[in-house]
């Protein structure tokens, strides 16, 4: 490393190990290039086969790994072989955060709306309101947005999971509380609905409160770790 820092351009200085012979600098360069270009880590034997005769491969590798010790890339031993790897403290530079703006599908949006207005709500109830089956992916996706959460299980046959919204949901849609969602009459007033609102069609009062409803049981311990299709009891 020292030699590399000081003057790399001058190759003779780069190698100042006691056993330095005329070929040593070349062997170091070859080993470096081989290790860099190889898709697989090299064993000492494999390297020896590619370096000039009589080169002390172990010494070359020691020297190389010392030179690279403090750098952004290190020469490391992996399963008995040698390879260049990004310095472990720099693994973060290889990770890149990409924020992808995605739009919810119509089905997802509708499901979200029902969850918001009718929470706590089961999948069967969502399907009843929408009049169509809700694809497995839709609820998974909504959970992924962070807007919808599993609340508990309905105290009913099959113990279906109940869904509700999260504080993040309120945040995203600029709502102060879940009861700020406009009711049907307000929706009509805003032009979202046409015609007379039948008296028997109303919106239950949604609750995103953490407190479970009387007909809700807490989630089973495993629910959060089960894949949806297993954890979802209301299928």
């Amino acid at each position: 490393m020292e030699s590399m820092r000081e003057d790399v351009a001058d190759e003779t200085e780069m190698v100042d190990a006691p056993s330095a012979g005329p070929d040593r600098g070349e062997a170091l360069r070859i080993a470096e290039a081989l290790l860099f270009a190889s898709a697989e880590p090299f064993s000492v034997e494999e390297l020896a086969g590619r370096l000039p005769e009589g080169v002390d491969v172990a010494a070359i590798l020691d020297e190389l790994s010392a030179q690279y010790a403090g750098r952004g890339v290190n020469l490391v031993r992996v399963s008995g072989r040698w390879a260049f790897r990004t310095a472990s403290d720099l693994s973060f530079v290889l990770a890149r955060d990409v924020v992808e703006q995605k739009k919810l599908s119509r089905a997802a949006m509708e499901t979200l709306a029902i969850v918001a207005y009718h929470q706590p709500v089961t999948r069967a109830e969502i399907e009843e309101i929408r009049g169509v089956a809700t694809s497995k992916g839709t609820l998974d996706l909504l959970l992924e947005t962070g807007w919808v959460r599993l609340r508990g299980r309905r105290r009913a046959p099959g113990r279906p999971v109940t869904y509700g919204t999260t504080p993040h949901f309120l945040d995203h849609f600029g709502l102060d509380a879940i009861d700020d969602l406009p009711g049907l009459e307000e929706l009509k007033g805003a032009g979202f609905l046409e015609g007379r609102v039948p008296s028997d069609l109303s919106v239950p009062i949604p609750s995103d409160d953490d407190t479970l409803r009387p007909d809700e049981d807490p989630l089973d311990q495993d629910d959060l770790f089960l894949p949806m299709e297993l954890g979802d009891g209301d299928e």
Partner: protein
Amino acid sequence: MANVLPFEDVERVERADGEPALLVDVDGFEGPLDLLLELARRQKVDLHKISILALAEQYIAFIEAARRMRLELAADYLVMAAWLAYLKSRLLLPEPPKGEEPSAEDLATALALRLRRLEVIREAARKLGERNWLGRDVFGRGAPEAVVVHKDSQYQATLYDLLAAYARQRQKQFNARVQLHQRNVWSLAEAREALERLVGHLKDWTSLDAYLMTYMVEPAMRPTILASTLSATLEMVREGKLSVRQEKAFAPVWVRAVPDPADAGA
């Protein structure tokens, strides 16, 4: 670059008899221009100073030799030979006064230029080929470490989208209910039940319409009541429980109970 080419001066004589050995393998050439370039190289002079006339003669000699050996020649070799024969004759004859056509010298210059251009690009191709190719002479990282992309999907939706989605579904439900009302019908069973109630005290001819009026409070129900009642009536007539009478088409329908044989007997 369009320097005047000395057409006739170059070592024509020594070549005229020489080197027929070349003239065997046509397959080695990529077209007439390639062959011409090779012949030009054989003049062992800079292409700037090439003799087009000598070149034309050589080419024609080559083609003739090839034909004598019954080698198959692609048409464009022959076309080039014909053109060169023409060029040669023009070069040998005194130039006519300036006409529409380019002078023989211009044609020769253009050909020389094409040859030089081909030679130049060949040289360029050679130099390019001699460069250090990635993956042949120099190498990139053999085991690139993938840049891990943490995709943070951010879903976008507005409150408007949310409300519109909700309203859309509720609206569907309203519509579904209205349709349910419209589909409300007086079933045959209902009609028959009502008729049977009627028949009990129909001792004389009674207007069916008048009787049905009581059921037709809702105008929307009128067609279905009429249709079902008529069907039920006809059914009861078939069973011998009712008589039906109508003066003419669209006239009121009269019904009367058929006296029970048991009653009649009494």
